[in-house]
Protein backbone atom coordinates (compact mmCIF):
# COMPACT_ATOMS: atom_id res chain seq x y z
CA UNK A 1 0.00 0.00 0.00
CA UNK A 2 2.76 2.36 1.05
CA UNK A 3 4.71 1.54 -2.05
CA UNK A 4 1.69 2.14 -4.21
CA UNK A 5 1.12 5.54 -2.70
CA UNK A 6 4.74 6.47 -3.12
CA UNK A 7 4.69 5.37 -6.71
CA UNK A 8 1.58 7.41 -7.29
CA UNK A 9 3.20 10.49 -5.75
CA UNK A 10 6.37 10.17 -7.73
CA UNK A 11 4.35 9.58 -10.90
CA UNK A 12 2.43 12.79 -10.29
CA UNK A 13 5.71 14.54 -9.77
CA UNK A 14 7.17 13.17 -12.96
CA UNK A 15 4.02 14.13 -14.86
CA UNK A 16 4.17 17.66 -13.47
CA UNK A 17 7.81 17.99 -14.39
CA UNK A 18 7.18 16.61 -17.84
CA UNK A 19 4.30 19.02 -18.40
CA UNK A 20 6.33 22.05 -17.36
CA UNK A 21 9.27 20.78 -19.37
CA UNK A 22 7.41 20.39 -22.65
CA UNK A 23 6.87 24.06 -23.40
CA UNK A 24 10.47 24.93 -22.65
CA UNK A 25 11.81 22.03 -24.71
CA UNK A 26 9.74 22.81 -27.78
CA UNK A 27 11.45 26.20 -28.17
CA UNK A 28 14.73 24.96 -26.94
CA UNK A 29 15.51 21.95 -29.11
CA UNK A 30 19.13 20.91 -29.44
CA UNK A 31 20.84 22.46 -32.46
CA UNK A 32 21.19 19.23 -34.45
CA UNK A 33 17.45 18.53 -34.08
CA UNK A 34 16.54 22.01 -35.29
CA UNK A 35 18.97 21.60 -38.16
CA UNK A 36 17.60 18.25 -39.31
CA UNK A 37 14.01 19.49 -39.15
CA UNK A 38 15.10 22.51 -41.16
CA UNK A 39 16.63 20.37 -43.90
CA UNK A 40 13.41 18.35 -44.17
CA UNK A 41 11.44 21.58 -44.54
CA UNK A 42 13.79 22.71 -47.31
CA UNK A 43 13.05 19.41 -49.05
CA UNK A 44 9.30 19.94 -48.68
CA UNK A 45 9.41 23.52 -49.99
CA UNK A 46 11.37 22.63 -53.11
CA UNK A 47 9.33 19.55 -53.74
CA UNK A 48 6.28 21.81 -53.50
CA UNK A 49 7.56 23.98 -56.34
CA UNK A 50 7.98 20.91 -58.55
CA UNK A 51 4.82 19.17 -57.39
CA UNK A 52 2.62 22.18 -58.10
CA UNK A 53 4.06 22.37 -61.62
CA UNK A 54 3.55 18.63 -62.13
CA UNK A 55 -0.09 18.89 -61.07
CA UNK A 56 -0.72 21.99 -63.17
CA UNK A 57 -1.42 24.11 -60.09
CA UNK A 58 1.48 26.39 -61.10
CA UNK A 59 2.77 27.28 -64.56
CA UNK A 60 5.76 25.28 -65.69
CA UNK A 61 9.01 27.27 -65.51
CA UNK A 62 12.11 25.35 -66.61
CA UNK A 63 14.54 27.55 -64.72
CA UNK A 64 12.64 27.44 -61.43
CA UNK A 65 12.18 23.69 -61.79
CA UNK A 66 15.89 23.17 -62.34
CA UNK A 67 16.78 25.35 -59.35
CA UNK A 68 14.39 23.38 -57.12
CA UNK A 69 15.77 20.04 -58.31
CA UNK A 70 19.35 21.24 -57.80
CA UNK A 71 18.45 22.23 -54.24
CA UNK A 72 16.98 18.79 -53.55
CA UNK A 73 20.20 17.17 -54.75
CA UNK A 74 22.24 19.55 -52.60
CA UNK A 75 20.24 18.73 -49.46
CA UNK A 76 20.52 15.00 -50.21
CA UNK A 77 24.30 15.37 -49.96
CA UNK A 78 24.19 16.60 -46.36
CA UNK A 79 25.84 14.05 -44.09
CA UNK A 80 23.16 12.87 -41.65
CA UNK A 81 25.24 11.50 -38.78
CA UNK A 82 25.95 14.84 -37.05
CA UNK A 83 22.24 15.72 -37.17
CA UNK A 84 21.22 12.56 -35.30
CA UNK A 85 23.34 12.48 -32.12
CA UNK A 86 22.50 9.84 -29.47
CA UNK A 87 19.81 10.92 -27.03
CA UNK A 88 17.66 12.85 -29.54
CA UNK A 89 14.97 10.29 -30.41
CA UNK A 90 11.29 10.83 -29.61
CA UNK A 91 11.79 8.52 -26.63
CA UNK A 92 14.43 10.87 -25.19
CA UNK A 93 13.05 14.35 -25.85
CA UNK A 94 9.87 16.17 -26.86
CA UNK A 95 9.56 18.10 -30.09
CA UNK A 96 10.96 15.42 -32.40
CA UNK A 97 9.36 12.60 -34.34
CA UNK A 98 12.64 10.75 -34.95
CA UNK A 99 12.09 7.11 -33.92
CA UNK A 100 14.61 5.23 -31.77
CA UNK A 101 14.81 2.70 -34.64
CA UNK A 102 17.04 5.19 -36.49
CA UNK A 103 19.87 4.47 -34.08
CA UNK A 104 19.23 0.70 -34.00
CA UNK A 105 19.04 0.56 -37.77
CA UNK A 106 21.49 3.21 -38.80
CA UNK A 107 22.58 1.29 -41.90
CA UNK A 108 19.04 0.97 -43.19
CA UNK A 109 18.41 4.65 -42.39
CA UNK A 110 21.50 5.50 -44.45
CA UNK A 111 20.18 3.43 -47.36
CA UNK A 112 16.91 5.35 -47.30
CA UNK A 113 18.83 8.60 -47.36
CA UNK A 114 20.86 7.35 -50.37
CA UNK A 115 17.57 6.37 -52.00
CA UNK A 116 16.53 10.00 -51.70
CA UNK A 117 19.80 11.05 -53.34
CA UNK A 118 19.24 8.70 -56.27
CA UNK A 119 15.67 9.89 -56.87
CA UNK A 120 16.71 13.55 -56.57
CA UNK A 121 19.49 12.92 -59.10
CA UNK A 122 17.00 11.59 -61.63
CA UNK A 123 14.72 14.54 -61.08
CA UNK A 124 17.66 16.86 -61.65
CA UNK A 125 18.24 15.26 -65.09
CA UNK A 126 14.69 15.84 -66.33
CA UNK A 127 13.48 18.94 -64.44
CA UNK A 128 14.21 21.39 -67.27
CA UNK A 129 13.00 19.10 -70.08
CA UNK A 130 9.30 19.89 -69.81
CA UNK A 131 6.25 19.62 -67.59
CA UNK A 132 5.33 16.04 -68.61
CA UNK A 133 8.57 14.61 -67.22
CA UNK A 134 8.00 16.08 -63.76
CA UNK A 135 5.06 13.92 -62.65
CA UNK A 136 6.81 10.52 -62.71
CA UNK A 137 10.07 11.91 -61.30
CA UNK A 138 8.28 13.69 -58.45
CA UNK A 139 6.39 10.47 -57.76
CA UNK A 140 9.68 8.57 -57.50
CA UNK A 141 11.05 11.09 -55.09
CA UNK A 142 7.88 10.88 -53.03
CA UNK A 143 8.47 7.14 -52.79
CA UNK A 144 11.88 7.83 -51.24
CA UNK A 145 10.38 10.19 -48.62
CA UNK A 146 7.59 7.74 -47.72
CA UNK A 147 9.95 4.76 -47.49
CA UNK A 148 11.92 6.47 -44.74
CA UNK A 149 8.95 8.00 -42.89
CA UNK A 150 7.28 4.57 -42.90
CA UNK A 151 10.06 3.08 -40.77
CA UNK A 152 11.74 5.98 -39.00
CA UNK A 153 9.28 8.79 -38.32
CA UNK A 154 6.79 8.52 -35.46
CA UNK A 155 3.15 9.60 -35.81
CA UNK A 156 2.01 12.93 -34.36
Amino acid sequence: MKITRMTATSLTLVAALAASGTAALAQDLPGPVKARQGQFNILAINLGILGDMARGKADYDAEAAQAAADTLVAVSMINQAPLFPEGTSEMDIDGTRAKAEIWDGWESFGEKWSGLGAAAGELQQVAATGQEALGPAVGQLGGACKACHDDFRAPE
Partner: protein
Amino acid sequence: MRGLLGFLVLLAALAGGAVWMISAPDRLPAGEFADDAGGDPVHGETVFTAAGCASCHHAPESEDKLVLAGGQRFASDFGTFIAPNISPHPQAGIGAWSLHDFANALLRGVSPEGRHYYPAFPYTSYIRMAPQDVVDLWSYIRTLPEAESPSQPHEVGFPFNLRRGLGLWKQLYLDPAWITAAETDEARRGRYLVEALAHCGECHTPRDRFGGLQRDTWLTGAPAPDGKGSIPALTPDKLSWSAEDIAYYLETGFTPDYDSAGGHMVEVIDNFAQLPAEDRAAVAAYVKALPEGGIMD
Protein backbone atom coordinates in the same frame (compact mmCIF):
# COMPACT_ATOMS: atom_id res chain seq x y z
CA MET B 1 -9.76 -6.23 -11.00
CA ARG B 2 -10.73 -5.65 -14.58
CA GLY B 3 -9.75 -9.22 -15.44
CA LEU B 4 -11.89 -10.59 -12.60
CA LEU B 5 -14.82 -8.49 -13.71
CA GLY B 6 -14.44 -9.71 -17.25
CA PHE B 7 -14.37 -13.28 -15.95
CA LEU B 8 -17.57 -12.82 -13.95
CA VAL B 9 -19.32 -11.23 -16.88
CA LEU B 10 -18.18 -14.08 -19.03
CA LEU B 11 -19.34 -16.72 -16.54
CA ALA B 12 -22.72 -15.08 -16.33
CA ALA B 13 -22.85 -15.00 -20.07
CA LEU B 14 -21.85 -18.61 -20.48
CA ALA B 15 -24.41 -19.66 -17.87
CA GLY B 16 -27.16 -18.63 -20.23
CA GLY B 17 -27.69 -21.40 -22.75
CA ALA B 18 -29.32 -18.97 -25.13
CA VAL B 19 -26.14 -16.94 -25.10
CA TRP B 20 -24.13 -20.01 -25.94
CA MET B 21 -26.40 -20.48 -28.94
CA ILE B 22 -26.05 -16.96 -30.26
CA SER B 23 -22.29 -17.05 -29.83
CA ALA B 24 -22.13 -20.01 -32.22
CA PRO B 25 -20.44 -19.28 -35.54
CA ASP B 26 -22.77 -18.01 -38.23
CA ARG B 27 -21.62 -19.56 -41.51
CA LEU B 28 -22.55 -19.04 -45.10
CA PRO B 29 -25.10 -21.58 -46.44
CA ALA B 30 -23.37 -24.68 -47.88
CA GLY B 31 -24.54 -23.97 -51.43
CA GLU B 32 -22.90 -20.54 -51.61
CA PHE B 33 -19.39 -20.24 -53.05
CA ALA B 34 -19.49 -23.95 -53.90
CA ASP B 35 -18.00 -23.56 -57.37
CA ASP B 36 -14.60 -21.93 -57.69
CA ALA B 37 -14.54 -21.94 -61.49
CA GLY B 38 -15.08 -18.57 -63.15
CA GLY B 39 -12.70 -16.55 -60.98
CA ASP B 40 -10.80 -13.80 -62.80
CA PRO B 41 -7.31 -13.53 -61.26
CA VAL B 42 -6.55 -10.26 -63.09
CA HIS B 43 -9.47 -8.50 -61.48
CA GLY B 44 -8.69 -10.41 -58.28
CA GLU B 45 -5.35 -8.62 -58.14
CA THR B 46 -7.10 -5.23 -58.10
CA VAL B 47 -9.36 -6.41 -55.28
CA PHE B 48 -6.31 -7.70 -53.39
CA THR B 49 -4.50 -4.38 -53.80
CA ALA B 50 -7.46 -2.23 -52.79
CA ALA B 51 -8.21 -4.48 -49.79
CA GLY B 52 -4.61 -4.29 -48.54
CA CYS B 53 -4.28 -8.04 -47.81
CA ALA B 54 -0.52 -7.95 -48.40
CA SER B 55 -0.07 -4.95 -46.08
CA CYS B 56 -0.90 -7.17 -43.10
CA HIS B 57 0.09 -10.62 -44.34
CA HIS B 58 3.54 -10.07 -45.90
CA ALA B 59 6.46 -11.12 -43.69
CA PRO B 60 7.73 -8.26 -41.45
CA GLU B 61 11.18 -7.78 -42.99
CA SER B 62 10.43 -8.97 -46.49
CA GLU B 63 10.72 -6.73 -49.53
CA ASP B 64 8.54 -9.12 -51.54
CA LYS B 65 5.06 -8.15 -50.47
CA LEU B 66 3.47 -10.98 -52.41
CA VAL B 67 4.83 -13.76 -50.17
CA LEU B 68 1.99 -13.90 -47.66
CA ALA B 69 3.98 -15.68 -44.93
CA GLY B 70 2.47 -13.66 -42.05
CA GLY B 71 4.33 -12.77 -38.85
CA GLN B 72 3.57 -9.05 -38.53
CA ARG B 73 2.49 -8.08 -35.03
CA PHE B 74 -0.52 -5.91 -34.25
CA ALA B 75 -0.62 -4.57 -30.70
CA SER B 76 -4.00 -3.65 -29.19
CA ASP B 77 -5.69 -3.18 -25.81
CA PHE B 78 -6.60 -6.86 -25.87
CA GLY B 79 -3.18 -8.32 -26.62
CA THR B 80 -0.91 -8.74 -29.63
CA PHE B 81 -2.26 -10.41 -32.76
CA ILE B 82 0.12 -12.01 -35.23
CA ALA B 83 -0.94 -12.21 -38.87
CA PRO B 84 -1.09 -15.83 -40.06
CA ASN B 85 0.38 -17.40 -43.20
CA ILE B 86 -2.25 -17.12 -45.97
CA SER B 87 0.00 -18.21 -48.83
CA PRO B 88 -1.19 -21.17 -50.96
CA HIS B 89 1.08 -23.57 -49.07
CA PRO B 90 -1.11 -26.63 -48.31
CA GLN B 91 0.04 -27.09 -44.69
CA ALA B 92 1.48 -23.77 -43.51
CA GLY B 93 -0.96 -21.60 -45.49
CA ILE B 94 -4.48 -21.90 -46.88
CA GLY B 95 -3.65 -24.00 -49.96
CA ALA B 96 -5.93 -26.84 -48.84
CA TRP B 97 -8.95 -24.57 -48.34
CA SER B 98 -12.02 -24.45 -50.57
CA LEU B 99 -13.52 -21.25 -51.93
CA HIS B 100 -16.34 -21.76 -49.44
CA ASP B 101 -13.83 -21.79 -46.54
CA PHE B 102 -12.23 -18.61 -47.87
CA ALA B 103 -15.57 -16.83 -48.23
CA ASN B 104 -16.54 -17.83 -44.68
CA ALA B 105 -13.32 -16.31 -43.37
CA LEU B 106 -13.71 -13.01 -45.25
CA LEU B 107 -17.46 -12.50 -45.04
CA ARG B 108 -18.29 -14.15 -41.70
CA GLY B 109 -15.03 -14.19 -39.74
CA VAL B 110 -15.28 -17.97 -39.24
CA SER B 111 -12.47 -20.52 -39.78
CA PRO B 112 -12.93 -23.85 -41.61
CA GLU B 113 -13.03 -25.57 -38.18
CA GLY B 114 -15.80 -23.21 -37.10
CA ARG B 115 -13.78 -20.92 -34.81
CA HIS B 116 -14.38 -17.16 -34.70
CA TYR B 117 -11.62 -14.92 -35.95
CA TYR B 118 -10.56 -11.84 -34.05
CA PRO B 119 -11.61 -8.58 -35.69
CA ALA B 120 -7.91 -7.61 -36.00
CA PHE B 121 -8.64 -9.32 -39.33
CA PRO B 122 -10.98 -6.64 -40.72
CA TYR B 123 -13.83 -8.91 -41.82
CA THR B 124 -16.12 -6.32 -40.22
CA SER B 125 -15.41 -4.33 -43.43
CA TYR B 126 -14.94 -7.24 -45.84
CA ILE B 127 -18.45 -8.47 -44.99
CA ARG B 128 -19.58 -5.80 -47.50
CA MET B 129 -17.51 -7.30 -50.34
CA ALA B 130 -19.27 -8.22 -53.59
CA PRO B 131 -19.50 -12.04 -54.01
CA GLN B 132 -17.77 -12.01 -57.41
CA ASP B 133 -14.87 -10.04 -55.91
CA VAL B 134 -14.41 -12.81 -53.33
CA VAL B 135 -14.28 -15.41 -56.12
CA ASP B 136 -11.79 -13.35 -58.15
CA LEU B 137 -9.64 -12.64 -55.09
CA TRP B 138 -9.48 -16.37 -54.31
CA SER B 139 -8.35 -17.20 -57.85
CA TYR B 140 -5.63 -14.53 -57.60
CA ILE B 141 -4.34 -15.56 -54.16
CA ARG B 142 -3.91 -19.11 -55.43
CA THR B 143 -1.38 -17.85 -58.01
CA LEU B 144 0.95 -16.38 -55.35
CA PRO B 145 4.12 -18.09 -54.08
CA GLU B 146 3.93 -20.64 -51.25
CA ALA B 147 5.60 -19.80 -47.93
CA GLU B 148 6.61 -22.55 -45.49
CA SER B 149 6.78 -20.66 -42.20
CA PRO B 150 3.95 -21.77 -39.91
CA SER B 151 1.50 -19.28 -38.39
CA GLN B 152 2.32 -18.21 -34.83
CA PRO B 153 -0.15 -18.14 -31.93
CA HIS B 154 -1.53 -14.76 -30.84
CA GLU B 155 -0.31 -13.29 -27.56
CA VAL B 156 -3.71 -12.69 -26.05
CA GLY B 157 -4.52 -13.27 -22.37
CA PHE B 158 -7.63 -14.49 -20.56
CA PRO B 159 -10.55 -13.87 -21.12
CA PHE B 160 -9.92 -12.61 -24.64
CA ASN B 161 -8.26 -15.87 -25.62
CA LEU B 162 -11.66 -17.58 -25.49
CA ARG B 163 -12.74 -17.20 -29.08
CA ARG B 164 -16.29 -18.27 -28.33
CA GLY B 165 -16.86 -14.90 -26.67
CA LEU B 166 -16.33 -13.29 -30.07
CA GLY B 167 -19.72 -14.63 -31.08
CA LEU B 168 -21.30 -12.09 -28.75
CA TRP B 169 -19.02 -9.38 -30.03
CA LYS B 170 -20.10 -10.17 -33.58
CA GLN B 171 -23.76 -9.93 -32.57
CA LEU B 172 -23.05 -6.36 -31.54
CA TYR B 173 -20.63 -5.18 -34.18
CA LEU B 174 -20.67 -7.34 -37.30
CA ASP B 175 -23.11 -5.53 -39.54
CA PRO B 176 -23.19 -5.72 -43.35
CA ALA B 177 -25.17 -2.45 -43.67
CA TRP B 178 -23.46 0.50 -45.37
CA ILE B 179 -22.58 3.40 -43.12
CA THR B 180 -23.28 6.23 -45.57
CA ALA B 181 -25.81 6.70 -48.36
CA ALA B 182 -24.67 6.75 -52.02
CA GLU B 183 -26.76 7.90 -54.98
CA THR B 184 -24.46 7.76 -58.02
CA ASP B 185 -22.16 5.10 -59.48
CA GLU B 186 -19.08 7.09 -58.50
CA ALA B 187 -20.40 7.50 -54.97
CA ARG B 188 -21.13 3.78 -54.75
CA ARG B 189 -17.61 2.96 -55.96
CA GLY B 190 -16.08 5.36 -53.41
CA ARG B 191 -18.20 3.89 -50.65
CA TYR B 192 -17.30 0.35 -51.66
CA LEU B 193 -13.59 1.18 -51.56
CA VAL B 194 -13.74 3.03 -48.23
CA GLU B 195 -16.27 0.95 -46.28
CA ALA B 196 -15.60 -2.54 -47.70
CA LEU B 197 -12.21 -3.07 -49.36
CA ALA B 198 -9.75 -0.47 -48.06
CA HIS B 199 -11.30 -0.52 -44.54
CA CYS B 200 -10.35 3.12 -43.85
CA GLY B 201 -12.69 3.10 -40.85
CA GLU B 202 -10.69 0.39 -39.06
CA CYS B 203 -7.94 2.95 -38.45
CA HIS B 204 -9.64 6.35 -38.73
CA THR B 205 -12.76 5.66 -36.60
CA PRO B 206 -12.69 5.60 -32.78
CA ARG B 207 -13.54 2.33 -31.00
CA ASP B 208 -15.58 1.80 -27.85
CA ARG B 209 -14.14 -0.08 -24.87
CA PHE B 210 -15.00 -3.45 -26.38
CA GLY B 211 -13.07 -2.59 -29.52
CA GLY B 212 -16.15 -2.03 -31.69
CA LEU B 213 -16.12 0.81 -34.24
CA GLN B 214 -18.28 3.76 -33.21
CA ARG B 215 -20.34 4.31 -36.31
CA ASP B 216 -21.76 7.61 -35.03
CA THR B 217 -18.28 9.13 -35.04
CA TRP B 218 -17.30 7.62 -38.39
CA LEU B 219 -13.81 8.61 -39.60
CA THR B 220 -13.37 11.27 -36.93
CA GLY B 221 -9.87 10.06 -36.03
CA ALA B 222 -8.67 7.74 -33.28
CA PRO B 223 -5.75 7.02 -31.00
CA ALA B 224 -3.23 4.71 -32.67
CA PRO B 225 -3.95 1.11 -31.60
CA ASP B 226 -0.38 0.57 -30.37
CA GLY B 227 -0.82 3.56 -28.06
CA LYS B 228 1.71 5.82 -29.79
CA GLY B 229 0.25 8.99 -31.28
CA SER B 230 -3.06 9.31 -33.08
CA ILE B 231 -4.64 8.80 -36.48
CA PRO B 232 -6.07 11.99 -38.00
CA ALA B 233 -9.76 12.74 -38.67
CA LEU B 234 -11.03 12.76 -42.28
CA THR B 235 -14.28 14.69 -41.69
CA PRO B 236 -14.55 18.16 -43.28
CA ASP B 237 -14.52 20.01 -39.93
CA LYS B 238 -10.99 18.65 -39.43
CA LEU B 239 -9.58 17.99 -42.89
CA SER B 240 -9.77 21.01 -45.20
CA TRP B 241 -8.02 19.46 -48.22
CA SER B 242 -9.65 19.63 -51.66
CA ALA B 243 -10.80 16.43 -53.37
CA GLU B 244 -7.83 16.77 -55.71
CA ASP B 245 -5.45 17.07 -52.73
CA ILE B 246 -6.85 13.86 -51.23
CA ALA B 247 -6.53 11.96 -54.52
CA TYR B 248 -2.96 13.23 -54.95
CA TYR B 249 -2.11 12.16 -51.39
CA LEU B 250 -3.43 8.66 -52.10
CA GLU B 251 -1.27 8.53 -55.22
CA THR B 252 1.98 10.06 -53.99
CA GLY B 253 1.80 10.39 -50.20
CA PHE B 254 2.23 14.16 -50.40
CA THR B 255 0.09 16.42 -48.25
CA PRO B 256 -0.90 19.81 -49.75
CA ASP B 257 2.21 21.38 -48.19
CA TYR B 258 4.39 18.54 -49.48
CA ASP B 259 5.07 16.86 -46.23
CA SER B 260 5.15 13.13 -46.86
CA ALA B 261 2.96 10.50 -45.20
CA GLY B 262 4.30 8.08 -42.62
CA GLY B 263 3.24 5.14 -40.46
CA HIS B 264 0.58 2.66 -41.53
CA MET B 265 -0.82 5.10 -44.07
CA VAL B 266 2.24 4.43 -46.25
CA GLU B 267 1.03 0.89 -46.99
CA VAL B 268 -2.41 2.22 -47.93
CA ILE B 269 -0.83 4.75 -50.30
CA ASP B 270 1.47 2.15 -51.86
CA ASN B 271 -1.67 0.17 -52.66
CA PHE B 272 -3.73 3.10 -53.91
CA ALA B 273 -0.91 4.31 -56.16
CA GLN B 274 -1.46 1.09 -58.14
CA LEU B 275 -5.21 1.57 -58.58
CA PRO B 276 -6.84 3.50 -61.46
CA ALA B 277 -7.10 7.29 -61.02
CA GLU B 278 -10.92 7.01 -61.01
CA ASP B 279 -10.73 4.93 -57.83
CA ARG B 280 -8.64 7.53 -56.03
CA ALA B 281 -11.05 10.23 -57.22
CA ALA B 282 -14.03 8.21 -55.99
CA VAL B 283 -12.49 7.84 -52.52
CA ALA B 284 -11.67 11.56 -52.44
CA ALA B 285 -15.28 12.41 -53.34
CA TYR B 286 -16.49 10.11 -50.56
CA VAL B 287 -14.24 11.80 -48.01
CA LYS B 288 -15.36 15.30 -49.11
CA ALA B 289 -19.01 14.28 -48.71
CA LEU B 290 -18.62 13.10 -45.10
CA PRO B 291 -20.82 14.87 -42.53
CA GLU B 292 -19.11 17.20 -40.07
CA GLY B 293 -18.08 15.40 -36.90
CA GLY B 294 -18.93 12.09 -38.55
CA ILE B 295 -22.53 12.16 -37.29
CA MET B 296 -24.80 10.12 -39.56
CA ASP B 297 -28.50 10.93 -39.80
